[in-house]
């Protein structure tokens, strides 16, 4: 029952179908609050850890392409593993397979019309669809430009060149806006790199250790007065602590 409650809340929280949420949440917490604080044991809603192998959204080719991309956006060096080993592609895959990929929670009624930059995104195309189209168009353009090689087969320098082309718009994609696609994948890659590892990226808190962020500690009262001193607490995450058996 707890797992069902969890799944329903997470899935429907962003949905306009709020009525289904109420029915599945049942009478335990109820919609009417009277004579006392509502309480149901075990009614917490922790994040669902990303686990498991394989892709939930990407095809194997898309997955390989995204792994290659994130490994250039965040290349491996002495500061941290690359985006691939940090799990950034897994992070993006799981996000796209879930509510974020579907634009759940956004206002998706029409009419859709392009507006000014200040009016924000006005497209009905979900992130999942944007990736599918963008990756296909990008791969096709790389094959065209680099003598029929796919992005995954290019040298690091050639890969960076292709990415720069997306970034500055000189690499035009058929059926997709190169610069919008670049911004999307960069944001998702960096979010995956810097978010809690429970979502599949930032493996072993690599980015947090790189920058000196101790993670999910919740009590710094011993540190607020220690001005200009390095905090020596070990990095911890929602599901990870040096004292816990892994």
């Amino acid at each position, binding site marked *: 029952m707890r797992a069902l409650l969890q799944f329903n809340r997470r899935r429907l929280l962003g*949905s306009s179908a709020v009525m289904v949420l109420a029915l599945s949440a049942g009478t335990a917490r109820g*919609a*009417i609050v009277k004579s006392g604080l509502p309480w149901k044991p075990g*009614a917490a809603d922790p994040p669902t850890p990303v686990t498991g192998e394989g892709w939930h959204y990407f095809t194997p080719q898309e997955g390989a392409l995204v792994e290659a991309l994130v490994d250039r956006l965040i290349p491996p060096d002495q500061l941290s593993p690359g985006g691939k080993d940090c799990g950034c592609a897994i992070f993006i895959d799981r996000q796209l397979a879930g509510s974020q990929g579907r634009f759940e929670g956004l*206002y998706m009624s029409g009419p859709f019309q392009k507006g000014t930059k200040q009016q*924000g995104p*006005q497209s009905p195309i979900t992130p999942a669809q944007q990736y599918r189209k963008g990756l296909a168009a990008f791969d096709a353009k790389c094959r065209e430009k680099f003598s029929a090689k796919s992005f995954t087969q290019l040298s690091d320098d050639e890969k960076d060149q292709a990415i720069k082309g997306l970034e500055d718009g000189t690499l035009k994609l058929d059926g997709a806006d190169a610069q919008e696609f670049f911004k999307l994948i960069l944001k998702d890659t960096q979010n995956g790199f810097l978010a809690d590892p429970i979502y599949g990226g930032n493996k072993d808190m690599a980015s947090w250790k790189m*920058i000196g962020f101790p993670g999910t500690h*919740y009590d710094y009262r011993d540190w607020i*007065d220690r001005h200009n001193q390095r905090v020596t607490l070990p990095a911890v995450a929602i599901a990870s602590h040096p004292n816990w058996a892994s």
Partner: protein
Amino acid sequence: MTQKLPHKDAVIIGLGWTGSILAHELTDAGLEVVAIERGPWRDTGTDFSITYAQDELRYRIQHELFLRPAQITVTFRNNAQQTALPVRTWGAFMLGNGAGGAGVHWNAETWRFLPTDFTLRSHLTQRYGANFLPSDMTIQDWGVTYDELEPHYDAFEYLCGTSGQAGNLKGTIQPGGNPFEGPRSRPYPTPPMKQGYGHALFADAARQLGYKPFPQPAGNLSQPYTNPLGVTMGQCTYCGYCEWFGCANYSKSSPQTTILPVLVRKSNFEARTECEVTRINLDNTGKRATGVTYVNASGEEFEQPADLVILCGFQLWNVQLLLVSGIGQKYDPSTGQGQIGRNFTHQTVSTALGFFDKDKYNFNPFVSAGSIGMCIDEFNGDNFDHGPLGFVGGGYMGQVQTNGRPIETTAVPPGTPAWGAKWKQALHDNYLSTINAGTGVHASFYAYRDVYLDLDPTYKDRFGRPLVRLTIDFHDNELKMSAFLTDKYAEIIQRMGAKQVVKQPRKGPYDVTQYQTSHLCGGAIMGNNPGNSALNKYLQSWDVPNLFVQGATAFPQNAGYNPTGTVGALAFWSAAAIRSRYLKNPGPLVHA
């Protein structure tokens, strides 16, 4: 088929800060009260769990505690020549949902407005002459004074346990506090927060430049506290997960930590959650509210009759309900007629980044809190001579950085590539040694004839009601002010010892994708007669005397401070008038 429910003495629309305060006051007065809240019930133990509250992706980036635009949103355009389009995902402002409202996810910065903020037009006209103000600026006096509100500011601060250092006690300036504040009758209920290295260094630099810094008044408590209702709060732990998040420590002032535990135990109170009020119903004279119509989570429609209706939603939804319910006359910018929707304002915020030598400075940005910070008020309101400057308005400024959350707080120097090895290196080199206060300069946004709210002609919400349409852009006055204030702020950051300061003054056009606080105000403003306002000084509707409209909807213009302290004070002030006068003799409290 609408089901008509048994009568209640009062129905409260929305259970955020003002809904909770009004419910508490009216139940104490013996009324049968029902509060109807669109979002879910929330409380600390279940919803702000100490084991997973610290999730930047979920709560800050993906907005999990907030209203979903799919549920309701607004449309936006800069001016009447454009077609307004839906805000499909939040940007410029973040809107609360559920019991506690924005009181759950706010930073708890708890300020009072200046005495002159309440008599703004009179004051500025007297000092600078009427011609000094732009001809399309529609600022007004509030109809209530700071002195009238002072006991109610006090009541809100003691409800909240606000941590601070008094600057003016009954007219005597106190060292270490804000020397510009209006006189207060007694000190804050708890001492000020401790400050981190960056905050303290800002204060040192400010003092060297001749300013008088003071700690920001905070609803993150410096020590445990039991409020007058008997509800106890804990001590803030400087966790750095404040704004956007629920507090797991019971140490952030919210309806959950100050009122709801007592309120729900009263036999004359009931809350209905996941129920959305779609209309305030009027009788056939149009001058009396008979109650509200609402829809529950299953889509069933109910009519809740009541003698007294208190509209306690967020500012935008208050205006939408007034418009769709046909209360008051909607504002027409071309004629200037109509009160509902006019004098809509936001906040003018800006900052300057400071990059410091990483081998000399370690700011531990993650050791922080929502209302931490050392501020100066020399450039707020009319605290300084505007004569030579050519603008009016101002704001406080401070090192008020609240967090070091990595996705949000990894600023890099200009010219750094956006990706790749150099980007990684820049993160590594700058994360611990950068000053990055999102609202380092927090300034006023005055009212204009062409900045207003009305109903969109095209886009609808899930009930088929028209969405609220925002027509808003910056005027030269605010942009000039922002440039001036940001320069002053940057001087202080420079004086701290920064090797590079990057000024980021506010620039037009108003961009609905850039977060600039959720301090939306106006649309049903208060004033001293129905020709210039929607509400009288007690927040009572001039049009429908058994309707009171709480919140920042009442602000004729926005001042250079966070609004919630003033929203709380007005709620207590309005509740006092209802209890001491209205309930004994229902009817208009002011005859204009």
